[in-house]
């Protein structure tokens, strides 16, 4: 039985702004095992990127973790001092950001930037050892050694993205977070990158948290997944189980509103309205204003929002489960 690499328990985070507190992450609980690939899916504003930055404790200045715990290999990250966190970041957990292609410093060569990251955690390594390490990483992601001496602007989008993945792997982390790493790329290159990520994961036994709004990618890349809406997880469980038996209304709608190139051409369901404002928190089911089949209880508010187990390991918001 593989052990849990990352356990997030009842995480609550909000941003303090002029207009009030934006409750970005509400009672988020999930865990990722060794070697497992976990997907986090949701639309803009659902909180998935906030979760990503919180896991690395890299949030902006006005973000506050009000409660909850993040245990990385049994090490509690919430409340850790900055100097300890710096040892954990990249060494144990790293991230491939959205728009990561622009994360490169344009005046420093690629190889040098990766070396810098390694040096931070292994200051005793020689330059030769580091170069060797980078060369191995490049082989894994499918890049030529000569890329080390190139500047970012000399590389194509796909190459830069692969280099970012190499950067994320440079200190042999146990778990990597990929926050929409292929959004800006062509579908053909995206396919190649996704294949690379999968290959790397199997090769190194890495855990992966894949964050995306594209459920098709999540379907292909992940073993387990969670669906987020308005800062909370509304459904989570094994990917196959969620796709074959979605219980929450939002999950169902998400699946039914994605056009596909294969299979029969079916009429898709549309979703009206917009996600709710997260200022000062929400009462009851956040999705009820947009739910196409709300029950009487849904619109009342004051519901006990808890996840209950539908089937083995598959959890969904209890109200929706009860609605059927």
């Amino acid at each position, binding site marked *: 039985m593989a052990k849990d690499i990352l356990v997030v328990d009842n995480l609550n985070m909000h941003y303090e702004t002029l207009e009030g507190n934006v409750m970005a992450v509400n009672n988020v609980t999930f865990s990722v095992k060794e070697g497992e690939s976990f997907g986090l899916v949701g639309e803009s504003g659902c909180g998935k990127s906030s979760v990503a930055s919180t896991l690395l404790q890299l949030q902006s200045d006005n973000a506050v973790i009000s409660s909850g715990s993040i245990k990385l290999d049994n090490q509690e990250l919430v409340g850790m001092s900055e100097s300890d966190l710096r040892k954990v970041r990249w060494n144990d957990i790293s991230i491939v950001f959205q728009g990561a292609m622009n994360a490169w410093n344009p005046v420093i060569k690629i190889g040098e930037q990766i070396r810098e990251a390694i040096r931070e955690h292994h200051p005793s390594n020689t330059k030769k050892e580091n170069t060797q390490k980078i060369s191995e990483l490049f082989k894994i992601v499918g890049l030529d050694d000569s890329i080390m001496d190139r500047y970012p602007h000399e590389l194509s989008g796909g190459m830069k993205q692969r280099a970012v993945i190499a950067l994320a792997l440079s200190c042999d982390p146990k778990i990597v977070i990929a926050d929409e790493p292929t959004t800006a790329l062509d579908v053909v290159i995206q*396919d190649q990158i996704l294949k690379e990520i999968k290959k790397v994961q199997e090769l190194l036994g890495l855990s992966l948290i894949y964050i995306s709004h594209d459920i098709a990618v999540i379907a*292909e890349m992940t073993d387990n997944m969670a669906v987020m809406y308005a800062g909370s997880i509304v459904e989570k469980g094994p990917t196959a189980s969620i796709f074959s038996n979605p219980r929450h209304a939002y999950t169902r709608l998400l*699946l039914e509103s994605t056009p596909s*190139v294969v299979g029969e051409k079916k009429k898709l369901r549309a979703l009206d309205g917009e996600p709710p404002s997260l200022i000062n928190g929400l009462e009851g089911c956040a999705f009820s204003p947009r739910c196409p089949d709300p029950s009487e209880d849904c619109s009342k508010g004051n519901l006990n929002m808890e996840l209950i187990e539908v089937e083995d390991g598959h959890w969904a918001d209890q109200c929706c489960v009860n609605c059927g």
Partner: protein
Amino acid sequence: MDNVIEVNNLIKNFDVSKGFFSRNKSLVKAVDGISFSIPKGESLGLVGQSGCGKTTTARALCLLDPKTSGDVKFYNPEADEMQNLDDLNEEQVKQFRRNTQMIFQDPYESLNPRWTIKDIILEPLNIHNIGSLENRTEAVVEILKTVGLTPPENYLPRYPHELSGGQRQRVSIARSLIMNPKFVICDEPTSMLDVSIRISIMDLMLDLAKDLQVSYLYITHDLAVARYMCNRIAVMFNGKIVEIAKTEDLLSNPIHPYTKRLISSIPVPDPKYTREKYEINFDELDEIISNNTENLPMVDVGNEHFVATHDVKDLLI
């Protein structure tokens, strides 16, 4: 054949020769001789990856940027005949502008942030002096209802930044369709919207196409979206159309290696589905694709399915 637009060998080159005194004229052949036509009431999807020339095509067809060469004929409903873009006099250019519109990709930048929604939608009517002032306001109200922005008085005095992305796209659609054009070019109008909102916008556009008898040239990089919106799909690569066919035919029976590669790269929202349909060695594919880049004639393989290639047998693997 009642076509709304006929394009023949459209070419658009960009001159990127460096330096003031340079002798070498280096040319970027953004659109390298494409041809297609769209029958009235039907929609054509133009699918390709970034840099393939689809946006350049759109801009050339709208007369935003001048084309380098090629024959483009448009149907002019007032004259009830096909007119060549090159031969238009001033009055005909105005008619052309009434009948051809474009919906843009970015909902945040395609509406003037200093104008109210009312003014934005009124503008086409004001420019072309259609109807009286009262009629114009009524028309604006009507179209707002049609695109689902009700009650209209809630939206008229607002500014774009007060609306969501989906609402802004509806305003763009309203503005484009208020003059009842026959041909609308859609440049990835839903790619910047949330996934759950895309369908409602696409359904709206489909309904309007049926009700108002509008033809779309739908530009997208997403084959799945093109499938949802269009009768026919043209696949573009490196400035050329490599394959064009009816939608279902293209997806179930792709012939050109690039089309095959495109289809097989798309992730499918079903964890049990394995994309092994086209067991293609990508290196071989790359070779075939790069070899097939001279100007190849389009070969008819039946059922209105055209592929760019010298010898079809080569590709019917």
